[in-house]
Structure formats: structure tokens, C-alpha cells
């Protein structure tokens, strides 16, 4: 349900940040950072099955809507409890809460569409599938390198 990251593919270009920002009137809900100069990781809302933010939210602004963690800005007071409750730090607060909304249910979220390296996907298995495919090819080539 959330956008999944194939870290092996991320090149750290931060295009997802800019695309997300353009799709959400100037605020980005994904954050990219380079770790140890050797890998780059975008982080954003996981749309957890058991979502802490929805448990901490006292106003009913954050709720589960099927697999998606939904956010109703009209009910939000900006208290900041959700940001404290999120284990991954991917709910931001500033006047109100802000987090990935899967581009309002669009078929392809902006970040997924824009990623030059195809690092983002709605398919949870994409990283594993690619790794398996690479392993299969390596096996066929018999380690001839």
C-alpha cells in the first residue's frame, strides 16, 4: 500500500522530494539522505497496518482507511502527538500534521512516476524480485565474469 523503496536503486537525486512538493502545494512528505556516502535512502509514511499515529491522535484526524493511513486536515489541531508516536519520524508537524497521502489515491504517486532510477514502487516485492532475477542471471552465466 505505501510506496516501497528499492534502496539498491536510489541514486540520491531527490527528485521524489521535488515532485512530492510540487504535487502538494509546496510541502514534501518524503525525505532523502545519503548515508555514509555510500547509499541513499528516501523515507516516508509506511501506512502501517497498526498505525501508532492513529492511536496517538486524539482528534480523529488520523485514521486507517483500509490499507491507507488517512489524514483529515480539518480535524487536526497540530498538537504534535502523531509526530512523537511515529517510530520512523515520518509525520511532520508545523501548524498541522503533514505526511505522505499517496497523492490522494492517484494510480501512480508522483514520486514513483518521477524517479529516474525506478527506485520507488507500489510493489512491495520489487526489490526482492530484482535481486532474485539478478541471482538467476548470475547462476545462468555460471559466474563467468
Amino acid at each position, binding site marked *: 500500500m505505501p510506496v516501497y523503496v528499492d534502496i539498491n536503486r536510489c541514486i540520491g537525486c531527490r527528485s521524489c522530494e521535488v515532485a512530492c512538493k510540487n504535487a502538494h502545494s509546496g510541502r514534501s512528505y518524503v525525505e532523502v539522505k545519503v548515508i555514509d556516502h555510500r547509499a541513499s*535512502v528516501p523515507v516516508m509514511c509506511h501506512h502501517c497496518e*497498526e498505525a*501508532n499515529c492513529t492511536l496517538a491522535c486524539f482528534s480523529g484526524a488520523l485514521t486507517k482507511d483500509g490499507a491507507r493511513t488517512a489524514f483529515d486536515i480539518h480535524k487536526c489541531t*497540530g*498538537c504534535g502527538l502523531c509526530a*512523537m508516536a*511515529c*517510530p*520512523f519520524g515520518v509525520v511532520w508537524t508545523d501548524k498541522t500534521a503533514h505526511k505522505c497521502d499517496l497523492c490522494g489515491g492517484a494510480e501512480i504517486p508522483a514520486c514513483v512516476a518521477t524517479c529516474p532510477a525506478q527506485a520507488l514502487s507500489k510493489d512491495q516485492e520489487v526489490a526482492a524480485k530484482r535481486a532474485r532475477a539478478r541471482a538467476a542471471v548470475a547462476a545462468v552465466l555460471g559466474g563467468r565474469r
Partner: protein
Amino acid sequence: MISLDSTKCIGCCSCSNVCPSKNITREDVGARRIIRYKACQEFCDICVESCPGKALTLAAQGEDVEIAFDMVRCEVCGAPYATEKMLDRIRTSIPADLQVDSTGKSWVGICPMCRRDLERERAARPIIASRGR
């Protein structure tokens, strides 16, 4: 006029965010948060409704009031990020098993920025190892 029950106030950002007349201000200086309530003439109850701790009620008369908190510092980076009472509320409102990471370590005492960085490091560890030195 606002009446504040300081035993119930958790020092969050709600009332200072929602007051339409900016009578409530919140100031974070270093590790100290001060929330100030100016005597207000309005009788809207937006701040009352928006308080998670139900610490605010309307009163006919009153004076300027303020409440201060020492913010908790992040275990990793040391930056102040939340009041103790906010974190206590987190600890009581979500199940214990959802307050710890896969190694059993609690992340509640870690600020959101460091939580993101920890998640990144955890997720990227195998990739970084394969990209070698």
C-alpha cells in the same frame, strides 16, 4: 477568559496553533518551552476543544497565565524535541510492543529526525556492506 489546569497540560502545540486571535503563544528557547495565555475577550472555545489533555476551560474572568516545560533531549543528538508529558502520553496511548524496534529498544526517547536516520541506517546496512570500502 481561559482557565488552565496545569496538572493536565502536556505542553503540546494545539492551543497555540488554533487560537484565531493569537492570544496564546508558544516559545521554544533552547530546551525550555513557555506557553503564554493572554487574557482574552473571545468566547470561542476552539482552544478548549483542541486540547488533548482537556486542560482548558472557559472562565468569566481571569489574568494572563503562563506555563513552562523543560523539553526532553533526544538520546542520540541531544536536541530538545518534546515535553516529558507528551512522551508519557505516547507511552500510555500506544501498545508497549509498538514502542520498541526489532531489537527491543525503545525509540520514544529519540527525536523524529534521528528516528528517520536510524531507519535509513538499518535499511541501508546490507547495501553499504556490499558497496564496500
